[in-house]
């Protein structure tokens, strides 16, 4: 059984809630549960009662450009799911909350800081035989007013990565060791989505994202274990600027979450261009 969240030594334990907490708040009108998965059938197959579905492709990404939705589209999404500025949004999902953390990160671009992640995600909820529902809830629409999207504090573009490289800043490559080494250009069992070169950004530390997770129940490891992984074994300094990347910025948003909130790193940015951009850029440095 996982140690209670408040006893794990996290810098910001308030961003994680337990499955118990969620079950106690199923009827709480101030809380909106949001399921975000890679597998779009999962929500329809059964979700936490009252939870809404936010799809990472259709709800969070611009449908034309490679970018996130506009402020207007985000406001429309929040109105649709019946969330107000003061609503506490709680994310959970498949794959150890990989997509939940991605959605959490996108919400932070719009300053919805009243956000949490359900520790353990879908897998823990299912393992504990908690209730599931196929009813798609409907909430009264809100008139949500979002802040203008502010990417700079938590999002890195390729120019930022190049500048970061010149300063020999901290980089974390959260992909699989085979992707990091350049032996493969995509995740095991996933299609190659188009990088012309394999390898990693020079100086990046290889710390696969799922190392932050207890594989049995999908919960985050305690701070002491995370510190050993990131700070001792891989020599990352919490007060140094850090950029995390993966293939398109989804796995790295999970690491961004762990470094920012669980370990309290000062400044972590997610490079969502990641390897599908860097591996195609002309004349940028690559290490193998």
């Amino acid at each position, binding site marked *: 059984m996982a140690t209670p969240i408040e006893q794990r030594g996290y810098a910001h334990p308030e961003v994680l809630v337990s499955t118990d907490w969620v079950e106690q708040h199923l009827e709480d009108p101030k809380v909106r549960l949001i399921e975000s998965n*890679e597998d*779009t059938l999962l929500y329809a197959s059964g979700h936490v009662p009252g939870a809404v579905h936010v799809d990472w492709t259709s709800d969070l990404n611009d449908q034309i450009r490679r970018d996130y939705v506009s402020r207007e589209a985000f406001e429309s999404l929040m109105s649709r799911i019946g969330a107000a500025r003061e609503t506490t949004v709680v994310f959970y999902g498949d794959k150890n909350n990989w997509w939940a953390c991605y959605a959490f990160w996108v919400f932070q671009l719009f300053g919805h800081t009243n956000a949490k992640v359900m520790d353990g995600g*879908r897998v823990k909820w299912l393992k504990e035989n908690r209730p599931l529902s196929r009813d798609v809830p409907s909430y009264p629409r809100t008139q949500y007013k979002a802040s203008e999207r502010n990417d700079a504090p938590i999002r890195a573009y390729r120019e930022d990565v190049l500048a970061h490289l010149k300063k020999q800043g901290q980089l974390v490559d959260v992909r699989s060791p085979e992707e990091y080494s350049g032996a493969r250009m995509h995740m095991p069992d996933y299609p190659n989505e188009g990088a012309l070169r394999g390898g990693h950004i020079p100086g990046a530390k290889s710390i696969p994202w799922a190392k932050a997770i207890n594989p049995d129940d999908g919960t985050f490891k305690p701070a002491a274990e995370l510190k050993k992984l990131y700070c001792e074994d891989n020599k990352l300094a919490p007060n140094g600027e850090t950029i995390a990347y993966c293939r398109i910025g989804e796995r790295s948003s999970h690491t961004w979450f762990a470094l920012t909130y669980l370990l309290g790193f000062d400044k972590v940015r997610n490079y969502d261009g990641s390897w599908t951009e860097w591996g195609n850029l002309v004349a940028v440095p690559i290490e193998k």
Partner: protein
Amino acid sequence: MPEKLQQLVDTFQMFDPADRTNLLLSYADQFKDVPPAIARRPFPTSHQVPQCESDAYVWAMKKPDGTLQLYFAVENPSGVSAKALAAILDKTLSGLPASEIASVNCDIVEKIFRQNISMGKGMGLMAMVQAVAALARAAANP
């Protein structure tokens, strides 16, 4: 393509996203695990579908009349899509001659799942279809 499968693919093509999702779920709900008389856990890796993260297995048993009966196992409890596809393949292909099943092409996956296909899932689902076709080819040309 075998007629029953073609008809179902056509139905999926006509449906809007919400109805397609519901139809996929109804197939996932009809999924039946391989019976113990055919295979028991731990299942042999020779029957495992490569590249399928839902940990799917497939068997094709030849009947005296030359037709095939397909069986599946999906070990990942979140493998809803794999279960849906397994049920679809079983209900539209089981009972057909091996040579007919061997003609199944993995492009049905995109036609059936459309927007419900995600990054990693497509490869695994196509591999399921390929595994069925490969077993049918082997049964047709022993």
